């Protein structure tokens, strides 16, 4: 009878052993998730700062503004994205995606926003991922931003570009605004074809609506400049209206 009892107890305790393994697993997972969430919040906050820094651009301070933005962006990478790199390994990239996705999206928004102002081109996903490689030491699996987060960040980028365009027009940089307009239209058009292919396109679809609104806002602003410029020609009979516009705010304010 006592051996039988022992057998029962051992089964009982083997359940206990198993569940204590499960408990450890769940605790470790939750704690890692918390650390990832925190790092992600820091990435978000500091990426937003970079975006505001880039918005400080104007005709006269371009170099210095972008230089500071670049430095700040590097700091986000080195200080906060690095924490994500340390935490995320193997299957974590997808398992914990919801925990870090907001931060990564905001980082994509900041990095592409900066890059567009610097070069006029879109910072590619490959480029952005390449810039993260130096963060990993060889023992770590490198953090690679996934396509979905990149595209979601890009969708938000258009909102910032809209703000930039409106501001640039007031500052006389009409051509810059027109360049933004073309760029945003291209992104919108390309995303149109890509959105239905996403893993879960519902988020993106609401972003597409906002994006179209941004496009229309920029187009309306450009329309307004053009119409005003056209009126100027018959009145003063000079050439390119935008060259005049470019001067408006400089000359005598």
């Amino acid at each position, binding site marked *: *009878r006592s051996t*039988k*009892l022992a*057998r*029962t107890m051992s*089964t*009982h305790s*083997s*359940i*206990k052993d*198993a*569940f*204590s393994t*499960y*408990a450890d*697993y*769940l*605790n470790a997972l*939750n704690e890692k998730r918390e650390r990832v969430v925190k790092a992600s919040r820091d990435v978000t906050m500091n990426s937003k700062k970079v975006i505001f820094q880039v918005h400080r651009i104007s005709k006269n301070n371009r170099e210095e503004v972008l230089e500071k933005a670049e430095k700040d962006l590097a700091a986000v990478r080195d200080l906060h994205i690095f924490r994500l790199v340390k935490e995320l390994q*193997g*299957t974590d*990239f*997808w*398992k914990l*995606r919801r925990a870090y996705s907001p931060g990564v999206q905001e980082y994509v928004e900041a990095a592409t926003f900066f890059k567009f102002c610097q070069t006029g*081109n*879109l910072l*590619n*996903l*490959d480029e952005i991922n390449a810039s993260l490689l130096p963060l990993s030491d060889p023992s770590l699996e490198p953090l690679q931003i996934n*396509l979905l987060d990149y*595209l979601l960040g890009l969708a938000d980028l258009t909102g910032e570009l809209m703000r930039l365009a409106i501001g640039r027009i007031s500052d006389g940089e009409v051509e810059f605004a027109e360049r933004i307009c073309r760029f945003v239209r*291209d*992104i919108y058009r*390309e*995303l149109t*074809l*890509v959105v239905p*292919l*996403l*893993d879960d396109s519902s988020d993106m679809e609401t972003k597409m609506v906002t994006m179209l609104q941004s496009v229309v806002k920029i187009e309306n602003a450009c329309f307004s400049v053009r119409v005003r410029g056209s009126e100027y020609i018959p009145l003063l009979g000079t050439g390119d209206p935008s060259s005049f516009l470019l001067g408006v705010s400089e000359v005598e304010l």
Partner: protein
Amino acid sequence: PSLEKQFEKFRVQLEDSGSLRERIRAVVLEIESATRLMQASLLLVHQSKPIPEVLEKAKTQINVLKDLFNKLAEVVRECPGQYYRYHGDWRTETQMVVSLLAFMHWLETGTLLMHTEAEEKLGLNDSDFGLDVEDYLVGICFMSNEMPRYVVNQVTAGDYDCPRKVLKFLTDLHAAFRMLNLRNDFLRKKFDTMKYDLRRVEEVYYDVKIRGLATSGDSVEDQGTQGQP
């Protein structure tokens, strides 16, 4: 041009992962269908069919499922590290499979099917494609949800010793679950339902007990469940 090229590449990638998902879904549909068959066989325990017979029929699906999970693993292996990207597509079905396997295991041995045992049965001892611990735990909760019904029907059919065994099993299981720290998520909700199962089984045990129907046998140690008189 660079913009277009990049997006062209994205389109290809997304279409690839879309078609991967399609293939996953096809396998999952097969899993669901096999699970249904297994469940249909198992449901007969509620109608007092002899357990060995019920189990025999149900077990024929285990190998089918093992093959299907193997097929699923092969598909997912094509995109290393992305197990959890598609995980949602087979979660529910896997939890159901675990719950049925665990129920069968208990009917046969009177013990809890362990995580590793479940993985083994489904051929998931691979490092790329394992059985997610939370899915396993949810599956166990689902199994617990079936217990009250089983006990009620067993007693109706005249098996008065069943409540005691189940009560012991669920009590231990519940104690084990209490070791976990859960978030306010699906698993916690499912775990909450286990308390009601436990209570219902305890009620049935009580019903049997006060009527002197429970077998005198204090023989707590007997392990086998089905078949024994």
